[in-house]
């Protein structure tokens, strides 16, 4: 085959003008079927779990057992549509949208903070646009990933410098984090920080800078916890859960109780009883209901599904036709991975309560739509995999198959 020829063509076509359009043939390629199937499956599963987890609350509060089911179904339909549309939208066109996106989301975050925000769970996280409530922090994650991927790909080798490659990214991320913290939304700020470090690390920023910033961030985080009374109280309660099981640690305690009462095989779908006790069972703590109703088998399966999701995302990153696509795919994969890991860790009380959703499963339109759009971007990247990458090994690739390495690492 004429592999070499194709590759050089791609190289010349794709490298210099970053915003150049890729080959029409590539854009029309098939999406990664496994990734698409996993996302659709997760969204469907989410609708079921949200119904199971919310029926009691919906009955008592909204006098309609299907109150949340109806809404989540609508969001799911919109999310699938969004994913489909975005997957046909060439991700290279995001170049031009990067800054508008960044500024737009930044403005929304700012609006949230300065007082237009709607309270929910004690924090102003929502913006009301007519009947629709949007959560800018969810968008901020994707916007930051897009911008970082863009910026890092553009700066290429200069990433390892401090002033050009490191500091600007940190500043932008810092501003977003600050706005998130102001809402206050500690969880999203942590995710933003993790995403920034991840992409900087991948793109080749100096390890020392990252470590330094990590220490700084950690110190800042400690301060944020220590000097915000409610966070510190929550932290203390999390440390001594048994003593606070009736007040501050009530939620994590009930959550662990849900997991535990599920046992190996669970009580069966729709038979969970902890929904009576666990506040926000259908949003941030939906994993607890999965644990109760489907047991350890269900939780392990869910973890495996997320593993597959991220592995396919990383695979797309490794096969992406250019740096931008690669960073973008990896950033989105990390976004899914970090959020699901943190959410599960919170639900199992390994980490203190954060207020992060379980991607694709938790109730919430903003989260679902943003994650679906991100998945759509990733699908678009996956369909632009060049011919030579499709047989699993790029010519320049080292003898070791990185995808396997990753998989091995993940399984450890």
């Amino acid at each position, binding site marked *: 085959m004429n592999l070499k020829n194709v590759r050089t063509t791609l190289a010349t076509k794709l490298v210099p003008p970053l915003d150049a359009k890729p080959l029409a043939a590539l854009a029309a390629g098939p999406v990664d079927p496994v990734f698409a199937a996993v996302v659709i499956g997760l969204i469907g599963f989410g609708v079921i779990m949200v119904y199971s987890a919310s029926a009691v609350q919906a009955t008592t509060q909204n006098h309609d057992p299907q109150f949340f089911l109806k809404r989540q179904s609508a969001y799911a339909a919109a999310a699938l549509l969004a994913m489909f549309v975005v997957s046909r939208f060439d991700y290279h066109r995001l170049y031009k949208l990067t800054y508008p996106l960044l500024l737009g989301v930044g403005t929304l975050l700012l609006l949230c903070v300065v007082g237009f925000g709607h309270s929910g769970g004690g924090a102003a996280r929502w913006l009301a646009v007519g009947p629709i409530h949007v959560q800018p922090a969810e968008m901020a994650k994707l916007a930051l990933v897009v911008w970082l991927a863009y910026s890092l790909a553009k700066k290429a080798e200069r990433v390892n410098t401090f002033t050009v490659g490191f500091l600007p990214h940190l500043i932008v991320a810092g501003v977003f984090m600050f706005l998130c913290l102001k809402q206050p939304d500690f969880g999203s700020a942590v995710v933003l920080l993790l995403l920034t470090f991840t992409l900087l*690390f991948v793109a080749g920023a100096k390890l020392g800078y990252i470590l330094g910033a990590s220490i700084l961030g950690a110190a800042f985080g400690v301060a944020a916890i220590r000097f915000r009374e409610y966070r510190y109280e929550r932290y203390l309660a999390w440390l001594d859960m048994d003593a606070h099981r009736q007040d501050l640690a009530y939620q994590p305690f009930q959550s662990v109780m849900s997991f535990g009462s599920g046992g190996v095989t669970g009580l069966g779908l729709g038979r969970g009883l902890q929904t009576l006790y666990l506040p926000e069972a259908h949003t941030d703590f939906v994993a607890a209901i999965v644990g109760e109703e489907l047991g350890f088998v269900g939780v392990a399966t869910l973890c495996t599904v997320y593993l597959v999701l991220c592995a396919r995302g990383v695979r797309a990153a490794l096969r992406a036709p250019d740096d931008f696509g690669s960073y973008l795919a990896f950033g989105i994969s990390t976004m899914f991975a970090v959020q699901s890991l943190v959410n599960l860790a919170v639900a199992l009380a390994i980490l203190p309560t954060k207020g992060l959703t379980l991607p694709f499963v938790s109730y919430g339109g903003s989260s679902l739509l943003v994650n679906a759009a991100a998945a759509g971007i990733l699908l678009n990247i996956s369909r632009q995999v060049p011919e030579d990458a499709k047989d699993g090994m790029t010519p320049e690739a080292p003898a070791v198959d990185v995808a396997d390495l990753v998989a091995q690492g*993940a399984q*450890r």
Partner: protein
Amino acid sequence: MRNLDTQRARWIRLRMGVLCGLMGLGLGGIVSSAYRVQVDDGPNWRETAEKQRQRRLHVEPKRGTIHDRNGTTLAVSVEVPSVSADVVEMLRGIQGAPAQKAALRDAAARLAPVLLLDPNELFARLARKGRFIWIKRRTTAEEATKVRELGDPKKTSRPIRGLTVEGEGHRYYPGRELAGPVLGFVAPDGQGKDGLELALDEELRGHLEDVKGIRDRSGRLIFSEGTTDEQSLQGHNVHLSIDEGIQHVAERELDVAQRTYETKGASLVVVDPNTGEILALASTPGYNPNDYTDSEVDSRRDRAVTDRFEPGSVMKVFNVAAALAAGAVKPTELIDCERGTFQIANVTIHDTHVNDLLTPTQVLARSSNIGALKIGLRLGEPALYAAYRRFGFGEPTGLPLPGEATGVLRPKGRPWFEVETANASFGQGISVTTVQLAMAMAAIANGGKLLQPILVKKVTDGRGRTVREVTLHVRREVVPAATARMVAEMLTAVTEPGGTGVEAAVPGFRVGGKTATAQKADPATGKYSADRYTASFIGFVPAERPRIVIAVVLDEPMIGRYGGDLAGPVFRRIAEASLRYLGVSPSASAPKLKSAARDGDTADATAAALRPMMDDTPLTGPALGAVRVPDATGLAARDAVRVIMNAGLLPRIEGTGRIVRQVPAAGHPTPKGSAVRLLLEPPS
């Protein structure tokens, strides 16, 4: 990364690998943690969750209703709304101690005026942050509505979260004081605390152990497991043998007696001698179980069951009955009553009135102690003791009421010495309860059968099905039917002119019974007190075919002391009302029988000089202010006694017929409680 040189692309891949590895580690941590929680600790967690869900209901199943024999409600549970709060739920989403404090202050300030509570006190209770706090129990319907509005997002802009309004069972006694000590009361926690409420608590409460509800975090009952049928959870209904009408009359009369004679307490039993069913069971002072907290603890016990006392002369009935049954004495035999004084083992026993020779009938009618002790000594200690035991003394009657006293026959735990046997023959040195006396007298009235007293006739479940039913139960045959009938006939002499219990006679009926006036032992000295008595009358009516037995026991009357004078009228009034109530007609040949009885009992002729004969020498009562003696001349004995009694004086009747003279004379100022001699002469 195709645009990059191989070296850099490799680096990026490596870094991605490292990060993927880290995230993989995180995932491994999650899965292992989930394994630990779900597989290793799963059963423990499941148990904890189960406990949380199946918290016992603090709202209990509806307590059963207590009815009288005709279905009238005596005690019923009604649902009364109570307001509680889950403060954790109330503060959900409010961060920081100052904000929470403000929220609680606000909630307290808004709730307090609605429920008429003190806002500061309410705040203090809320500030404890419990998951379940009573805000106010037993609210009115309007209060409950207002509280619901405060918690409803549709009704108020700032709803207070975590408020719960739910029905709580409240016990209501429509008859107020009626049968209070019998019924008892129910504490706010739903526990029966006294009387039948305590004794039948298990049945009245319903099957609490079966009632498990699932509650959500605000304490709402979501659904019940297994038993959704409310009626099957409900407590059982109790149907008493008590007749509300008779009980009412009995209590009223006992209350009047208590106030008139200024007694320390009084108890009364009305029992159907044919079935053992208790028609009334009264005790004064009583109380209103609706407001039991306002009552004295002393007024809550049912004296007819819990108090034992020395019965005095009434025991002569059972002594004589046993002696007749054993053949130790013959019905027509004359017993030497030693002219009122008899020495036995250094103890001199007196009769209040001097008698020479008396038949057993006269021993009862005149209440001769010496006659009774001679009969008792002839019977012998073992036989007398055994007879008392057979009549049911010294053992509980088995009434389902808490704290029933058994009474004591042998206080020293050994057989009586001779003098003790002599004393026991006329009811001294032993103790009994009013219910025991009533049941023993019922045995005389019904032909010798000692019956199980029945207070609870029937217990039905929530659907009306009978759970258990109590029917006639003969504990034992005490004496042969013929002996019982003979004694019953003898006892009619007590209420006929010349007997000690003329005041107990019911117009138009023949009444059998026995008076008793027993000195009370003074706990301080261990000797008999000179001025403290138990006055009683135990009788049955109509004598020829008894329908009711009434035992009236007055404890420490301050004005007067004789069983016949004090308890007799109470008996009569209750008997009159009860017979009317039961539809027993007085025209049932009573006069004819009366004359027939007189013909057959000439020894008991009224010609003998008869004053009420008491066991003990009466002493003048305390002067309680002077009264003018009313004019009783020209009146019949019964009316004269009533007139004198109403004035707070004590009549002494001498002779038969109509009053011809009285001492002191009419209009003479006399200290209250002093005696008035009434001299009677038959109309010539």
